[in-house]
């Protein structure tokens, strides 16, 4: 399944336990790896839509080391996420667990960076422990999505061809 509404960021679901996002950025991968793993850099960009900041970004970059991110919206809403690093292989590979707490299932996230001609292809996969866990996450996300009232079906169907 492919939901690719812009030329830039591609999302695919190659199996029923995995979601993959890819994107090409115009920088060498050593710098991109740093942007993903240095707490000085992350709050500058990993912010999602407009209106969010990242007041907490703690990174203990070693296998078994913990990470903890908190995002805050201007109205005070907070989202927190934490996990543990499993593999750190700069500048090409980073593996960690990720959990949003509550009913959200813990996922195994793999970041792979490949460089060609000074550009870096970012490929990040999120793997759910089971199909059931993926579905549970999907259900939670669906409730949030529905409350935002987005209607992007037409757009989405156009990408199915």
């Amino acid at each position, binding site marked *: *399944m*492919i*939901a690719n*509404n*812009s030329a*830039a*960021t591609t*999302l695919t*679901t*190659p*199996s*029923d336990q995995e*979601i993959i*996002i890819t*994107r090409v*950025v*115009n*920088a060498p991968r050593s*710098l*991109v790896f740093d*942007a993903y793993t240095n707490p000085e*850099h992350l709050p*500058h*960009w*990993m*912010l*999602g*839509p*407009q209106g969010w900041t990242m007041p907490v970004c703690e990174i203990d970059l070693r296998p078994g080391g913990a990470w903890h991110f908190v995002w805050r919206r201007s109205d005070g809403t907070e989202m927190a996420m934490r996990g543990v690093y499993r593999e750190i292989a700069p500048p090409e590979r980073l593996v960690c667990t990720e959990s949003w707490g509550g009913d959200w299932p813990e996922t195994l996230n793999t970041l792979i960076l490949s460089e060609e001609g000074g550009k870096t292809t*970012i490929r*990040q996969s999120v793997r759910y422990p089971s*199909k*059931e866990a*993926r*579905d*549970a996450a*999907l*259900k939670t*996300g*669906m409730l*949030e*999505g*529905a409350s*935002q009232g*987005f*209607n*992007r*079906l037409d*757009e*989405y*169907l*156009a990408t*199915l*061809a």
Partner: protein
Amino acid sequence: MPPDQLSTIFAALADPTRRAILAHLAQGEASVKQLAEPFAISPPAVTKHLKVLQRAGLITQGRQAQWRPCRLDAAPLKDVADWLEDYRRFWDASFERLDAYLIELQAKEQHDREQ
């Protein structure tokens, strides 16, 4: 929507021919023969794909004896699409910022080297 139906939807959408069939049906209802035309596959093979899509609740098939038109039922698809689109949108917005930030970092590196 029960979780097992979500899995069925994901499995149904995993196949490019089935995605193309859905895109075709997004333009309006069509017969099995019409759906088979753009693909190099037989109507029976299309029927197999239609059964998978039907089980996932993504299409319905009419009862008229002659041409039994297929119709898209987009509601379940919308739920999945919304969820994935929210996720993609988060990353797309973040990558836009990353692009700009990487340019800034490289300019700074360049500047430091020249000092």
